């Protein structure tokens, strides 16, 4: 049973990653990559690695995405200015 759930989440991860690479929109791409990170952190949790899961969620998925957005925002503002 856990294997099946694990498999499904793994599929989600891969799908999110694929989508991140296939979509034309930068923002969507960054968001899907963040989603992939979040799914991965669930995988980590299921693999008895709560520390890693937490790190991945807070840093790999959370903060990284934020930084992406700040960078994108800065790029946008320097284009306008």
């Amino acid at each position, binding site marked *: 049973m856990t294997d099946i759930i694990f498999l499904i989440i793994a599929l989600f991860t891969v799908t999110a990653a694929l989508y991140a690479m296939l979509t034309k929109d930068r923002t969507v791409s960054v968001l899907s990559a963040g989603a992939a990170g979040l799914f991965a952190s669930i995988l980590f949790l299921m693999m008895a690695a709560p*520390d890693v899961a937490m790190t991945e969620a807070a840093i790999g998925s959370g*903060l990284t995405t*934020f930084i992406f957005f*700040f960078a994108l*925002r800065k790029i946008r503002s320097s284009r306008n200015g």
Partner: protein
Amino acid sequence: MVKKVFILLMIILTGLILWSFVPGYESRTALPEVSAHYVEKGPEELGAANIVTAVVVTYRGLDTLGEVTILFAASAVVGLLIHLNKNENKRRREGSEILRTGTALLFPLILLFGIYVFINGHLTPGGGFQGGAIIASAVVLQVLAYPNRKIGHGLLSVIESLSGFTYVLLGAAGVFLTVNGFLDNRILPLGEYGSLLSAGLIPVIYTLVGLKVGSELSSVVISLNGESEEEQL
């Protein structure tokens, strides 16, 4: 198009290289010698309930020091580039009312949560890096809500420097006090197993790491937001 097919071929071949590992792979049933040592002796040796933390902070403490250094270097590069390319700030639209009120409420809470995470790193999942990241996300909220408020690097930089410096000194203290004890956590008493003030130096180090990582990541965020470094918090 030809190029993409070629790239795809290369990626498939790379996949084959990695795949060559899969057939021989089986989930472990027993731990390797060193890991077994950590799990069996770790709690007694270091007094930390969270073995991952014990490994991160003490057994493989040099890695962690390096890791902190990498973040430090990354933030120094960000600082360097911002410093070299000072440009005038453009006013940005303030965050919405809801965001600002929410931030006012949440900011201290998130900060506290971050602190909780790194102080309890030796007992529960979490630690300096996670806590630091949480603190940084509080700053992110702040920046989002008040994009034009000048949040400077001044205080952050002092916190960062002091915590980093102390971390290294505490590590070096191990060399003084014990033999070959760089980053040894046992220069403080191990305390009662499972309590907050236990595991010797681990909570102290994780606190320092949390402060350092938090301030570093915050300044990266602020730098990317385009503020100059002159103003203070």
